[in-house]
Every structure is written in C-alpha cells, then in structure tokens.
C-alpha cells in the first residue's frame, strides 16, 4: 500500500477488486548476485501477464518465490490482500498458486490419473470420481488427454497438459508457466494458448515467461519487464505495436542490426550423407561444405535425434560403410580416430543435462570436452586451462561469478555462451548444433547466431532446429525432415519452397497439393 509505482494500472482505480496476488518489495540474493530487487507486482483475475527479461534477469527466481519453491530474503506476498508466507510449494498450492516447471515432475511409469492422485495428502482417494473430473476439466479447456495413458508414452505437449491439469484439479487460481512453449510443436502451442485464454476468461490469472516476442504479443494482456532483478516497466499489450519495439523495451536500448547472413566462399566437403540410415532416420542424402550452414528443420521427433547421434559418432549407421563420410573419412575411420582440434564439435540441446555438469564449476565444465588440450602425462594443467577458460569467458561475455561459479548457477543464455565458447575453442571444422538458441533471450540469441555465422570461415554447420526463424536466418541449405526422411533439400534462394516449409514439415511434398500451399504463405 505504501509502495506506489506509477506503472501499476490497476492501482489507479480504487474500485478494482483486490489483486489475486500482490508482491511487495520482494528481494532475493544468491551470494553476491541480487536476483530480485524490490519487486512489486500485482496479478488480477482474468489477466494474462507476460514476464519478460533477458537471461539472468531474475524471472525464474521471482516465479519460484511466488510458487513457494524458494523463499524471498525480504518482502511480502499477499494473497487476496492477506500476507501469505509460503514455506513450500505445498503452501502456495493451498493458496491457489501453482507452477508448471520446465522440467516436468511426473512419474513416468504411472498413468495420468495416478499422477493426479499423487500429492493428495488427505482424505480417501476416489480414483473413479477423479477420472471423471479429469475428463471434465480436459473437455472444458480443449485438452485431448486419455486419463489412462501412461506418462512415458506421452509427448512433451501432452505431459505439459497433465501438469496443467494437476493444477486445475487443485483449483489453482494463479497458474505460472516458465517458458511453456520451449518444448511444444506449433500446433501444440496454439492449443495451449487457447486453453490459457479460456482459463483467464474463467477468472483465473496466468503468469508466463517467454523469450519469444511473437508469443508474448499473441497471448499476453499485460507485460512486465525485468532487468537485472528489477521491474523496470509494466504496460498493456495494446501499448506495443510490434516485436522489435517490444524487444527494445525489454533490453532498454536500441537493438543491434538484425542478423543477416552474407554467404561466404564454400570450401571442401566436410559431411556427406549418401543414403545414410540409422534407426528412424532413413536414406538421408546431403552434403555440407566449409562455409555452409545446413538447417534440418522439422517437428521434433522425426528422426533428428538419430541423425545427430549418427553424425556425432554415438550411433552406428546401418547403411553401408561409405554412406556417412565425416571430414573426408568414412564413419568407422572417423570414430576410430577423432581429431581433438579442428574436428567435430557437438552442441546439444540439453545444456544442463548433457552439455554441462551443473554441480561442477565453470573450469571443470570447460575441461569437460577440452581436457585433451590441457593434459600432460595424465595430469591436468588446471592453471593453463583456467587462463584459457577465462579468455573464453571474456571473449563470449559470459556473465558469472568467476571461474569457480557452478555451471548450475548461470542463467540459460550465459551457460549457452560458455558451451559455445568451449566448443569453438578447439576450432572445429564441423559443428553440429541442436536448437542452439532455445531458451535464450533475443540479445543472446542474436549473439549466438552471429557466432555461428562467423564460424563459417573455417567450418561447416549442421543446424538441427525446430525454430523456422533460426533456420531462415542462418541456413544456406534447408533439409526438411519428416518421418525420418529428408522430404526436400533446397537452397535458401528458392523462395517458393521456403514459403512451403510449413507444409513440408507436415509431410506434404512441394507441389503435391497446389491448392493448399497458399495457406502457409505467412510461414518463414
């Protein structure tokens, strides 16, 4: 009440009902890092609030405080105008605040209904009534879900629906979603958004975090911007005309020029697939030369994983020995003797699960793939490695609390920059990158794009992405993957095909259904 920030539109009119949730002067520090500073925020029923900010701005921290997962150092959370100290997510749930985490917390071996039964601490369980209620809720919000399906058989989008159902089942009035669309296919995203809008119109409040400006503009009714732990701006969706303006309000400065690729001279062939087959991936044909970016686009789960495993040497091609040639050698020869420097590097999609050890510090994480460079007689030369790692951190502008910060404490963008710097340190000639900008803010994303484009001077890039925009920005050549096959491979200058990419991703070959092609015109 004593706090009065001009950018709370709701405070202007005294007639408005008390906010569902009000945060007052929330502060939270991790050691020297102040992740949240005097945050004041209100969420009203029927609102969809987008929380926007660069990587490390403190969005996830704030939401984990609101959902009871971590605790503020100071400040108060009010629920319906009454202070509510949350000691655990359980407390927050009781107060009607629930969060869908990026990494789903479901028991894989159990069914949807059984997962919903979990955590119902009190009273007698009634699975049958519960099943009914699940079906009712699912129907209400347009979720297609089979209550008896086992979680492990569900797609990411379906699992997310289960998580949301979990909250709805407990009558949550405030739903928090942290980067909910990162794991979704475009049609799943559409469905999610319409369900969220429905919930808002039912009087629930939605808070979501996203790095995709288009989605924010599409879904939000209010937008709050966090920068270095503080809320610096709060406005209505209607106040911003377009993505670029929104991005500039987020970073608080003029954005650098949009990344555009200018072709560089092509060199020798670095990767050649000639009928390569491995598991789901079948009969793949393409080649990548130095200076070239080949973007494999498609909905996740169409054989991209098998392709990547084969090219990085983790899975053996089932086709003939010469069907996969890497850096001028056959697959077998390449795997038998990999070059440490000037070889192949792989930037996996899962930064915290695969590319790094979150519990270890940055130096150890740097050594993870660079240890060959810093060993002598079996001993690691950590001092030399530290100098190199510090160089990388400087060059790639990794913001961290020194070399001895744990990788897990870095924000997504900074960690990705560190991974990129580490992998590029060995001056690779072939780069395999999987969704390299997933979860990154616009600034970091464009930075990563520039780095990848710059690497073309000495390398070829196999870019596997589900983000069409990324592909359009970076690629010289497109390969559209559907059910394990490249259904089309074409140059970025082929604008006709480029416009039809959305269709191809759904399995419709170029020119197959002329009459339907016009509809996907706004893709790309």
């Amino acid at each position: 009440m004593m706090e009065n920030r001009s950018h709370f539109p709701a405070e202007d009119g005294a007639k408005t009902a008390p906010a569902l949730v009000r945060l007052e002067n929330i502060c939270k520090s991790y050691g020297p890092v102040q992740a949240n500073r005097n945050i004041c925020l209100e969420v009203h029923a029927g609102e969809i609030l987008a929380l926007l900010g660069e990587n490390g701005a403190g969005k996830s921290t704030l939401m984990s405080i609101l959902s009871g997962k971590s605790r503020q150092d100071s400040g108060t959370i009010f629920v319906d105008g009454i202070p509510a100290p949350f000691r655990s997510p359980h407390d927050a749930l009781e107060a009607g605040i629930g969060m869908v985490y990026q990494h789903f917390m479901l028991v894989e071996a159990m069914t949807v209904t059984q997962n919903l039964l979990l955590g119902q601490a009190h009273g007698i369980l009634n699975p049958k009534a519960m099943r009914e209620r699940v079906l009712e809720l699912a129907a209400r919000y347009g979720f297609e879900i089979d209550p008896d399906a086992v979680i492990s058989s569900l797609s990411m989008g379906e699992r997310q629906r289960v998580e949301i159902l979990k909250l709805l089942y407990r009558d949550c009035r405030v739903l928090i979603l942290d980067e909910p669309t990162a794991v979704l296919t475009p049609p799943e995203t559409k469905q999610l958004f319409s369900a969220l809008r429905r919930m808002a119109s039912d009087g629930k409040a939605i808070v979501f975090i996203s790095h995709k400006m288009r989605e924010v503009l599409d879904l939000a009714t209010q937008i709050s911007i966090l920068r270095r732990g503080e809320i610096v701006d709060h406005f209505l969706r209607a106040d911003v005309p377009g993505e670029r303006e929104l991005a500039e309000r987020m970073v608080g400065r003029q954005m650098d020029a949009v990344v555009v690729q200018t072709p560089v001279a092509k060199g020798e062939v670095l990767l050649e697939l000639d009928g390569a087959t491995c598991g789901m991936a079948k009969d793949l044909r393409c080649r990548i030369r130095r200076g070239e970016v080949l973007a494999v686009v498609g909905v996740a789960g169409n054989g991209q994983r098998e392709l990547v495993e084969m090219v990085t040497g983790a899975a053996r091609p089932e086709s003939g020995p010469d069907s996969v040639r890497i850096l001028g050698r056959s697959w077998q020869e390449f795997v038998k003797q990999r070059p440490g420097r000037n070889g192949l590097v792989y930037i996996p999609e899962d930064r915290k699960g695969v590319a790094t050890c979150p519990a270890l510090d940055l130096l150890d994480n740097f050594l993870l793939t660079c240890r060959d460079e810093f060993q002598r007689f079996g001993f690691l030369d950590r001092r030399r490695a530290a100098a190199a790692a510090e160089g990388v951190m400087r060059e790639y502008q990794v913001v961290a609390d020194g070399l001895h910060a744990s990788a897990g404490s870095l924000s997504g963008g900074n960690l990705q920059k560190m991974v990129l710097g580490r992998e590029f340190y060995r001056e690779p000639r072939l780069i395999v990158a999987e969704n390299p900008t997933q979860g990154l803010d616009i600034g970091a994303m464009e930075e990563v794009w520039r780095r990848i484009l710059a690497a073309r001077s000495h390398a070829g890039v196999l870019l596997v992405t589900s983000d069409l925009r990324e592909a359009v920005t970076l690629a010289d050549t497109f390969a559209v993957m559907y059910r394990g096959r490249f259904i089309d491979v074409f140059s970025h200058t082929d604008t006709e095909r480029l416009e039809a990419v959305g269709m191809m991703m759904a399995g419709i070959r170029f020119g197959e259904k002329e009459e339907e092609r016009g509809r996907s015109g706004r893709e790309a």
Partner: protein
Amino acid sequence: MDGFRVVRRQTPPGWVSFAVLPAALLIALVFCSLLLMIQDKSPVKAAVVLFQGGFGSLYALQDTMLKAIPIFLCSLGVSVAFRMKVWNIGAEGQFALGGVGATWAVLTFSGLPMPLMLCLMLLCAAVAGGLWGLIPGYLRLKFGLNEIISTLMLNYIGIEFMRYLVYGPWKDPGSMGFPMTGLFPEEAVFPEVLGYVHAGLLVCVVAAVAVYVFLQRTRLGFELCVSGENPRAARYARIPYGFLLMFVLALSGALAGMAGCVEVSATFNRLQPNLCTGYGYTAIVVAWLSRLRTPSIALFSVFVAGLLVGTDNLQVDMQVPAAFGGILEGFILLCVLAGQFFHSYTLVRMGRRQGGAA
C-alpha cells in the same frame, strides 16, 4: 492439524552441521542409558568407561589408531567407487584377498630385506584385492549384473577362500591343528613407528595423498568425478565409462587389499580365519558419514574405531553382554546417519495458514 512436515532446506544449514554430531551422540547415549538401566548398570559409568576405553588415555588412543588404520584404507577405497556412484560393498572380501595376497608373498619369497619385503607384500595384496574388485566390474559390463549384488556375494566367496587356505594348503604343521599359517618372519611385519602404532599409518598417509592427487590433479580422476556427477555429460564428453568402472573397482579393491595386508602383517603376524571382523562393512558407514571427503574419512575412521575399542572395554569392565557393544555402536551410527538428514532437510510446524483462500 498440528504436526511437522519435512521441507527441503533452501540454504546450507550453517550451524546445524556442527550441532548434528553432538546431538546425535547425545540421543544415542540416552537410548543406551535406558538399555543399561534395564540391566541395572550405571549409564554414567558406562559412558565414562566407553570414552576412557576409546580415547581416554595414550594406550586407548593407540588401540584406537590400530583399528582406525584398516578402516581408513577400506573406506578410502569404497569412497573412490562411491564417487562414481559405483556401489562397491565388497571391501570385506577384497580385504580378505589382500590378506591372502600378502601371505602368499611371505610364503613364496624369503630372505628379502624388510622394506622390500613389505612393499612386495603390499603390492601382492593390492593386486589380489584389485583383481577381486575387477570381477564385479567385468560382470556388470558383460552381463549387466548389478555390482551391489556381485560385490556382496564375492565377499562370502573371498572369505571362504581365505579360510580354505588356512584350513588346508597353508596350515602350519607346527600349529598343533589350529587353522593358521606359521608366524611371519620379522622382516614381514610392519614395524612400530609411533608408540606401538605400526607403519600401516604411513601406508594410510601415502594412500590418502595419492588418492587426493589422483582425484584432484589427474585426467582420469577428473573423468571419474564427472561420471559420478552426470553420466549423460560423461557420455557426451566421450569419457570411457566401462574402463573407468573397471579401474575404479580395481583401485577400490587394491586399497581394501592393502588394509588386509597391514592387518595380517601387523596385527596377527600370520593369516588366520578371524582376519575378517567387518572392517569392510564399517568402511561403508564411514565413507557415508564423511560424505566421501578424505579428511572426514580420516576423522570418522578414528571416531568409529574409538567406539569399537570403547565398547570392547565396556564388555570387560561392566560385564555387559558382547551383543550390547554391537547395539550401542549400531545406535550411535544410526543416529549420526539420521542426523545427516538435517543437512538437506528441515522440519517445519504445520500451523494454520494465515493468508487464506476460501
């Protein structure tokens, strides 16, 4: 509804970590006092006897050190494997094989000068223990057999094998039918270096330093830590998991084997069937208590060894049954382990919530 609920700590516990050990000990002692009072024995006197016996005098301390040496070596071994999340609970069997290896060296070579002889014994013990450790590693890689089962089962085989040798081929004809080898010659016995604490202490120091350097400085040690921390990242970085698994079990077995060597040479001066008294299992508890940190392993080894010595004393001085010593030890360790729960969790009262939704 009143009561308590378990909640994960969000900040490291601070003072709690210092308070946990004494508090756990206190609780264990209260429990044991009750047990003693049922038997009409004075708990206060028992506590004094226990402490006196384990730590109260120079003699007591030396006795404690003697027991701490094999526990420390075994514990160092299992902690290396635990670090990679390889659950080697076969230290007991590897310890027995170490005793066998050392004895074989003594029976085979004679007339060597003492330093050479002792080094040779340690080497043979390490190789024997290490090979014993390799078996579960091989079984896991080849057939996917869980190492918890195989290391445990190999304990029984290893101990029986050792007993077979002392009851059969290696039995000393001059032992009047007792199952034991002949007394080791003087050059095969670890000399005393500190009071009557023998040179096994030096073995501990060297082993501790070597393990520390290995884990902190070498490439292999680094790979081992990564494999334990995040197996998926290890695969991504092409760390040779299979090789490391074998290596870690061999190293673990070698350290337990060296403990066996020290024990036969310095404590018994011969191989005899009661060599194995559970140090290999105690070592697992110690590794767990110390959360795999080498300095803590040293401290907890001494602590647990002191408990063992102290309870032995209790039996003699207060005529409590032998089993009581075991119960007491078990209680104390259980309380300390349970206390470690509070490093990562805390209890909060479930009161009425203030901020209320209808």
